[in-house]
């Protein structure tokens, strides 16, 4: 790229966005206060499953400060919320898509299901008035567990989904797998529950919806990871408005982890109502609402088997998973336990035959959708728990069994549809073992044993597929959206550059990373680059940020636009320098006639483009503003090895993480500091899943028992240690940055590494199986049970 001073690619540049966040100048949705705004409050079901016989809103409407009260019956002409991915079942039938109403009508299907909206002058007045709404519920039995939901006689949640089944879907060659199992020397089997999680971005969801009679247009500020998708779904599918009349702005967003990808009922109802009340409407979720009504993650029940030959070579894998969808299909719910799960079951291994069958069930719970990792942590957990158990059963060392099965030749076609372009799995395993000091483990274990403690070491050699693509293949698999990204590079007349990206930052630091990419390519200072994101009114289009796609897909779109800028710049420079276009080189911020010292600076070319006095107007348009849409040709495949060492106190069952080491291959890295931060955050979410977090609904009543930070154990600073993280690089082969993505790796690798360590530690005490989270109570109980 450009000259050494301005080329910051690969450097830990401190973040451009930090000054505003550190001085309290961030602009989050709840900080937006349009004049004369009102406040919305949503009345939610206290029952997991109930028919609503009657709703009387008269008293609420008459309460002080109330502007309007709406129920589902008022939303005439408003459709239900759509699901963005159509899964076709093994029976050839499309999945069941029962209506997902904006406000529930006639029936509520989970605790927290919203069915009325009160709009008032203050939040307190809205809330007080909601209490005056008289509702006649007829509570009926509920079912919250996906396996129970599929059993005969389970309460029926939707008329349109008999047996609560959304779909049964399968991937892989069943006959080949069955044949391989028949001749296996060893078969390892596990029954696994992947615990349900609640994402808990620290900024609660919020929205501010306004309507303007001047242009019959709407403006929505919303905590969204992908404002264009939100607008498209809301206008075209639900409200029947022209996209041109709705501007969606996702300003600073305080974390998402998937939970802010989706089109939610609240903001949809608010946009609709903003025209009716003709005043802006604001709503910010209380944390208890986040627990109840944000889309949750995971919630799989799986039976998994691995067939091996006598040397520990994997012959085949067979997996059956029941996945909860919750009460309604959230925006991407259906593709998580299928397209983003079963396809990852090859892991880093040459397993020649894999078959996975998934049944998705409706349950009386909040909807389930993508949460950091989305399908891939569940897949990695299945694969790496199987591998750990198989190695233990067969007496093969954990690193050795992995090495015996690693893929080493690329590109590699897996039996579950993916084509890995590149990777270097041995290098990551070696390095992770080095920094984890695996050699010294036996001595540490012996020392711990003297103190009466149980030490264990666990590995996870994970792979993930990021930057979901390409659109045409995804389309054949059921995607109802494109998966490209958009970048616009606007060179201003004085040489400053404004970049409009369809990616959205809610903590990832795009303003810095993307600026590094652009500044380095153009040979200009980072300060001269401004990144604009999160506003449908300013950015051409975009698919937003999820699935670790921003740099690999969004960054590449920017690169493509930069290529066009440079190409046009060469034409302008050729004219100014009276040289042939083919002779112009662009380097270090200068257009130079090759082999001479005749050059024009980038800024001079920009100025000429906007003040085209000496300009080839007959051949070239003025201006220097280019847009590119980039549709990737393949997924990217970040991979790595995480190694966790735990020490368990058998008297209390408490698991202490004494060491966590990660070596990841994210391809080329623009800003190592930001990448490390992503790994730290992901690992702690993974540790949260493995040790602390568990969403619990009462099996009988369907009440959410973990509805606050008192009951749902979000990791705190003193629950986790510091980690050793490092990287190895095999550049992605199919995008110009060579980048793969890093946002989810921690959450994917950590749960399996940690639980493998727990199992390793407990094996000496005779404990063979434990589900997440490995709480002290669970570990202690398992140890007691093993004694008897």
């Amino acid at each position, binding site marked *: 790229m450009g000259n050494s001073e301005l080329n910051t690619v690969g450097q830990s540049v401190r973040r451009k966005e930090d000054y505003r966040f550190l001085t309290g100048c961030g602009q989050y949705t709840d900080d937006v206060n349009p004049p004369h705004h009102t406040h919305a409050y949503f009345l939610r079901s206290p029952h997991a499953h109930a028919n609503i016989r009657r709703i009387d809103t008269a008293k609420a409407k008459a309460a002080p400060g109330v502007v309007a009260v709406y129920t589902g019956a008022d939303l005439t002409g408003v459709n239900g919320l759509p699901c963005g991915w159509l899964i076709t079942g093994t029976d050839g039938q499309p999945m069941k898509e029962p209506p997902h109403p904006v406000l529930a009508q006639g029936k509520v299907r989970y605790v927290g299901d919203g069915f009325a909206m009160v709009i008032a002058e203050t939040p307190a007045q809205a809330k007080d008035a909601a209490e005056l709404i008289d509702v006649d519920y007829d509570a009926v039995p509920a079912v919250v567990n996906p396996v129970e939901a599929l059993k005969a006689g389970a309460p029926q949640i939707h008329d349109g989904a008999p047996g609560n089944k959304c779909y049964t879907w399968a991937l892989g060659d069943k006959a080949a797998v069955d044949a391989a199992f028949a001749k296996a020397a060893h078969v390892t089997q596990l029954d696994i529950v992947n615990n349900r999680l609640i994402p808990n*971005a620290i900024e609660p969801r919020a929205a501010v919806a306004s309507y303007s009679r001047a242009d019959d247009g709407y403006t929505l500020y919303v905590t969204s990871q992908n404002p264009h998708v939100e607008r498209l779904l809301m206008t075209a599918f639900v409200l029947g408005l022209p996209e041109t009349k709705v501007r969606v702005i996702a300003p600073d967003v305080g974390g998402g982890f998937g939970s802010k990808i989706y089109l939610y009922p609240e903001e949809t109802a608010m946009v609709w109502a903003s025209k009716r009340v003709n005043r802006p409407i604001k709503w910010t979720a209380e944390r208890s609402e986040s627990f109840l009504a944000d889309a949750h993650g995971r919630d799989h029940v799986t039976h998994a088997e691995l067939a091996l030959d006598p040397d520990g070579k994997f012959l085949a894998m067979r997996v059956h998973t029941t996945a909860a969808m919750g009460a309604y299909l959230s925006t991407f719910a259906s593709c998580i336990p299928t397209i983003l799960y079963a396809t990852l079951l090859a892991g880093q291994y040459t397993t020649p035959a894999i078959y996975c069958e998934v049944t998705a069930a409706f349950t009386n719970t909040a909807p389930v959708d993508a949460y950091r990792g989305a399908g891939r942590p569940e897949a990695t957990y299945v694969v790496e728990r199987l591998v750990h158990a198989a190695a233990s059963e067969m007496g093969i060392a954990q690193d050795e069994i992995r090495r015996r099965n690693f893929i080493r030749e690329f590109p590699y076609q897996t039996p579950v549809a993916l084509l890995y372009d590149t990777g270097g799995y041995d290098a990551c395993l070696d390095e992770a073992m080095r920094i984890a000091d695996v050699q010294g483990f036996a001595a540490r274990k012996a020392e711990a044993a003297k103190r009466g403690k149980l030490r264990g070491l666990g590995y996870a050699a994970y792979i993930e597929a990021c930057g979901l693509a390409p659109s045409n293949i995804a389309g054949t698999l059921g995607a109802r959206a494109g998966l490209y990204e958009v970048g616009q590079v606007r060179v201003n007349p004085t040489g400053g550059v404004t970049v409009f990206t369809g990616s959205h930052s809610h903590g990832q630091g795009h303003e810095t990373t993307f600026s590094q990419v652009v500044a380095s390519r153009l040979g200009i200072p980072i300060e001269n680059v401004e990144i604009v994101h999160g506003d449908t009114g300013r950015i051409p289009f975009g698919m937003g940020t999820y699935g670790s796609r921003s740099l690999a897909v969004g960054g590449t779109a920017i690169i493509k636009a930069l290529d066009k800028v440079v190409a046009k710049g060469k034409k302008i420079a050729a004219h100014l320098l009276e040289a042939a276009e083919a002779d112009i080189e662009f380097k270090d911020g200068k257009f130079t006639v090759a082999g001479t010292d005749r050059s024009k600076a980038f800024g001079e070319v920009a100025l000429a483009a906007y003040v085209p006095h000496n300009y080839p107007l007959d051949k070239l348009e003025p201006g220097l503003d280019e847009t590119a849409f980039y549709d990737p040709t393949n997924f990217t495949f970040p991979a790595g090895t995480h190694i966790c060492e735990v020490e368990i106190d058998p008297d209390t069952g408490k698991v202490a993480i004494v060491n966590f080491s990660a070596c990841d291959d994210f391809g080329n890295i623009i800003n190592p500091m930001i990448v*490390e931060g992503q790994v730290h955050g992901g690992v702690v979410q993974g540790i949260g899943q493995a040790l602390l977090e568990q969403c619990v609904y009462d099996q009988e009543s369907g009440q959410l028992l973990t509805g606050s*930070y008192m009951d749902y154990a979000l990791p705190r600073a003193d629950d*986790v240690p510091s980690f050793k993280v490092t990287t190895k690089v095999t550049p992605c082969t199919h995008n110009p940055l060579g980048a793969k993505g890093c946002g989810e790796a921690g959450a994917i690798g950590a749960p399996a590494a940690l639980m493998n360590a727990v199992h390793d530690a407990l094996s000496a005490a005779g404990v063979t199986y434990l589900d997440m989270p490995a709480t002290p109570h669970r570990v202690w109980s398992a140890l007691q049970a093993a004694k008897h």
Partner: protein
Amino acid sequence: MSVSLSLTVNDEAVNAQVDARTLLVDFIRNNLALTGTHVGCDTGQCGACTVLVDGNAVKACTILAVQANGSKITTIEGLAKNGELHPMQAAFKDCHGLQCGFCTPGMVLSAIDLVQRHPDADEATIRAELEGNLCRCTGYQNIVKAIAQGAAAMRG
């Protein structure tokens, strides 16, 4: 019932009439338009709303505005002087102790309180003291690093 308040916020005298049930955090955000103080929960558990009241870290969602009558309050907006970051803010930037920035104001103010009480805090102390502040983004590692570095800078 409305009550009158007089207090100092970020070195400026503030006099106001508020509804008696107004929480300090709502007073700061809504009446004073200082939106750097955030609300992340409704159970006093997340610490996003932390401000300094007479130099001590207080979760502003857990007290009423009237309880702060007569006191001296510092919010995140009051830390940087003349555009120059407070050493703790600078350390957060330098150590990448923030991602989405939502927990950050509370983290920085808690950190300053922590350092006042434990000028030489080690990692274990910092982690234990941060127990009241949730961050979902950073995994805490760089926050801990930032606080140690900020503490050193504050010692001078």
